[in-house]
């Protein structure tokens, strides 16, 4: 049997709330520490305890981090999902299961390898407490997997020691449980399997972090002092991570007082209202939410757009509509975020693809919101936000100053003949603002969602109203120049592929798969809305563009055609909206099928 190294998909099928997350997490982390690229995906139910949950680890020497169809090793620990778990194994795959009770005959497959480990029986003499036995079962299969896959055992034991630091009483029982699993595998099973792990050096200086934590750190480094939020999966951990790090890093050394304020609001309407009130009063502020929260925030987002108040919103997208699949990923808030609220509104969107970008964009969004005096939404998703992703390390330029935008202080006001809040002095559509309380005589103005003139005075004059709306359009054009530009890779192909956010994850693998079929594509990763001119140039310079996204209605394509006045026929949608993250296979299959159906030339055909 040929042995393959560092190239498989392993899936753990567990019961929610059974303590499997920490053992599964250690599995992934162990491989990471051995220098092997891993991508983890937690596929979990909207439930606290009892429903099925899966944890998938993509192991790839080549560094492919996207999802790939098919499971090579299934650790089936949930009797309820046995049938579908066994069915999801690729032919030749390995089924690891607890054979304390025999596997039902109906579940058996002749084309897979069964690896039975009597986990319950092994632990019965070791742990009298049934709950403990359940918890240690996870650690025991981890020990067995170490032997089966040739994972360096010390790496795992080292991790147990760090994980339970401070709860030292737990270290030894965990190591015992690991040993039980390992010993059983070594004595009774054929070890190692032909799918193995081998130490390598493909990680470099990368870290393994979830996008929500990275985004929260971005907000912290970017100078956010007010965070208001309402709990909603999958965004909750943004606010929680902000609180955790702020409590460590934002405490005044002398007084012990906090240089930040966090409010868990009564709902998303209040959360965005607090953010807007704080920003109006000169504090950097943000909120984190998901689709239903964006719906609730819409009225306030329109106010902030029209009254020109900065606000930063992390939208960690999940599957909609309505409550949808709250614990599954999607890129389906694009349109509702871009045009949130009534009337003519448009909002700046940043589209991060990695935790590093969640960090960078988290901080940049605060600068952009202040500069543009408008809401900026960081459009993450569950895949990026809640899973540990391999990422370039986070870095900060210590010389960087916050760009607070056009804000007049008392001295500047003194020198000014007359202050006009909404005057377009610089021709970029952005007026100068003042914080409340700045000057005893000058600079005060009344902020309102109703129309007003350049001096902030209420008016219903049609001319003044139109002039103001046109200025906001000018500001939008300024925004297009300030937001992160698209990442483009071209090699002179006639077709291109456009994607954004986590759709970038499976793209290298999909492109390699397509390359093997003779399909070569130039690529563009869009990183913001409004689109920069490089996006339209890329589209114009290719005969056709595949637009890959994770929603049903091709929302990015709609934005592109609407905003750019493009011919929709030139944009071919590649869509996936099942709630798992889009796989390389899906992209490859849909592109390939389009080539076949339309009899488009492939490079291999030209060669022959």
């Amino acid at each position: 049997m040929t042995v393959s190294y560092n190239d498989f998909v392993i899936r753990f099928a567990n019961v929610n709330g059974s303590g499997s997350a920490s053992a599964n997490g250690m599995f992934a982390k162990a491989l990471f520490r051995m220098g092997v690229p891993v991508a983890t995906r937690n596929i979990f139910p909207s439930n606290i305890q009892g429903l099925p949950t899966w944890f998938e680890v993509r192991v790839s020497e080549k560094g492919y981090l996207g999802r790939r169809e098919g499971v090579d090793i299934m650790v089936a620990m949930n009797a309820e999902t046995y049938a579908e778990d066994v069915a999801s194994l690729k032919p030749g795959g390995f089924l690891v299961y607890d054979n304390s009770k025999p596997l039902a005959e109906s579940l058996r497959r002749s084309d897979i390898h069964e690896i039975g480990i009597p986990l319950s029986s092994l632990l019965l003499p070791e742990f009298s407490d049934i709950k403990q036995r359940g918890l240690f079962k996870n650690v025991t299969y981890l020990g067995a997997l170490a032997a089966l896959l040739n994972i360096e055992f010390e790496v795992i034991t080292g991790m147990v020691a760090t994980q339970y630091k401070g709860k030292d009483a737990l270290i030894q029982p965990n190591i015992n449980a690991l040993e039980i699993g390992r010993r059983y595998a070594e004595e009774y099973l054929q070890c190692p399997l032909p799918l193995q792990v081998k130490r390598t050096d493909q990680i470099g200086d990368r870290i393994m972090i979830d996008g929500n934590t990275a985004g929260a750190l971005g907000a912290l480094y970017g100078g956010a002092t007010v965070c208001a939020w309402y709990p909603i999966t999958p965004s909750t951990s943004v606010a929680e991570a902000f609180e955790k790090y702020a409590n460590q890093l934002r405490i005044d050394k002398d007084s012990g007082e906090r240089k930040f304020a966090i409010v868990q609001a009564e709902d998303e309407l209040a959360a965005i209202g607090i953010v807007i009130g704080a920003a109006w009063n000169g504090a950097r502020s943000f909120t984190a939410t998901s689709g239903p929260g964006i719906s609730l925030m819409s009225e306030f987002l329109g106010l902030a757009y029209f009254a020109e108040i900065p606000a930063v919103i992390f939208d960690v997208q999940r599957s909609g509509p309505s409550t949808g699949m709250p614990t599954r990923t999607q890129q389906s808030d694009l349109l509702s975020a871009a045009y949130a609220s009534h009337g003519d509104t448009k909002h700046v969107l940043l589209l991060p693809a990695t935790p590093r970008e969640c960090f960078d964009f988290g901080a940049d969004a605060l600068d952009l919101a202040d500069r543009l005096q408008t809401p900026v939404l960081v459009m993450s998703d569950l895949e990026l936000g809640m899973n540990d992703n391999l990422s370039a390390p986070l870095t900060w330029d210590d010389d960087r100053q916050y760009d607070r935008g056009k804000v007049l202080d008392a001295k500047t006001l003194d020198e000014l003949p007359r202050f006009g809040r909404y005057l377009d002095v610089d021709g970029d559509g952005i007026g100068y603002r003042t914080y409340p309380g700045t000057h005893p005589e000058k600079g005060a103005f009344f902020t309102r969602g109703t129309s007003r003139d350049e001096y902030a005075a209420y008016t219903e004059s049609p001319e003044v109203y139109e002039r103001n709306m046109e200025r906001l359009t000018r500001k939008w054009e300024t925004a297009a120049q300030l937001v992160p530009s698209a990442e483009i890779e071209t090699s002179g192909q006639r077709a291109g592929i456009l994607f954004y956010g986590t759709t970038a994850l499976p793209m290298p693998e999909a492109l390699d798969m397509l390359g093997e079929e003779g399909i070569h594509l130039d690529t563009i990763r869009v990183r913001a809305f409004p689109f920069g001119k490089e996006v339209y140039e890329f589209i114009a310079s290719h005969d056709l563009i595949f637009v890959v996204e994770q929603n049903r209605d091709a929302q990015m394509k709609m934005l592109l055609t609407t905003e750019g006045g493009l011919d929709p026929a030139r944009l071919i949608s590649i869509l996936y909206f099942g709630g798992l993250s889009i796989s390389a296979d899906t992209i490859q299959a849909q592109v390939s099928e389009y080539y076949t159906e339309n009899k488009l030339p492939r490079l291999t055909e030209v060669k022959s």
Partner: protein
Amino acid sequence: MTFVAKPKVHHPKLPLNEIGLTRRDYEGPVSTLCAGCGHDSVSAAIIAACAELSLPPHRFAKVSGIGCSSKTPSYFLSKSHGFNSVHGRMPSVATGANLANRDLYCIGVSGDGDSASIGLGQFAHIVRRRINMLYIVDNNGTYGLTKGQFSATNDKGSTSKKGAPNLYEPIDLVSMALQIGASFVGRSFSGDKKQLVPLIKAALMHKGFAFLDVISPCVAFNNHNGSTKSYDYVRDHSGSVVVTDYHLPHEEITADYAPGTTEDVQMPDGSTLRLSKLDDSFDPHDRVSALTYVQRRQAEGEVVTGLLYVDPEASDCHEVMGTVKRPLNEFEAAELCPGNDVLAGINESFR
């Protein structure tokens, strides 16, 4: 409708306050509300209170929601920033504004539609959060801008201008504020300047959440016979529990202007709130008995006005949260950003 500024010139003999300003320095442009609107009297009382307290007229954050009442912040304190925000959501905007700069005096003006209907949830939660502000509801029991629909504070049986009775129970914001934990609760009448101005002064000096429900008749839609929020009805049915007088720290407290027992309450800044109790059974420091008293009198068709509850030892949200004394909006990168070395350590914890 346009913005009409008031002429800046004023009578040379207008008295100056301690910081050398006249009452005119606390005014705003001409109101666009109906002539005789109770809300304009509330604005005038705010102007009088701020001038008498000699507060710097640019150091306020004025916030409001939507409705006639919410327009009023543009008619007072024109040297301060104002924010006319979203219907029913002023409390959240006020919360954010107060978190950003705790040094500004925060005045929120809302209406009965804004606070008791669309914004009831936000009203309840700002009380809980103890934001240090004066929250005034100009309560006229009707929707003025949309021409006379009943609001949620309208009394059951009270009639509309066309004579139709209100079928539903009213929401009493004073009782709610007492129950949820407001540390300063009062009710007054826009036509009773003598009561309203000292109440506003005391509320502004109170540290914590100060709530004032001001019955403010709507001359256009709710000032007829049959309305329980008309000038005549309120004058006939209001019963004052406590006469309030507010004294600055150094001001000599000379005479008590109402009969009955008096009590001086020391405010956190050293000033004094003098309470003259008209009813011995009433204790403005007992939340539970205040609530009972208000509701009992209400059942008898009486509108209780005056200072209903005050906790001079109250704390505000910044104390609860332990935020820095300096306004959060003053901090720069050097004080907020932990720097790249710390980030390197954070990276290490993710390896």
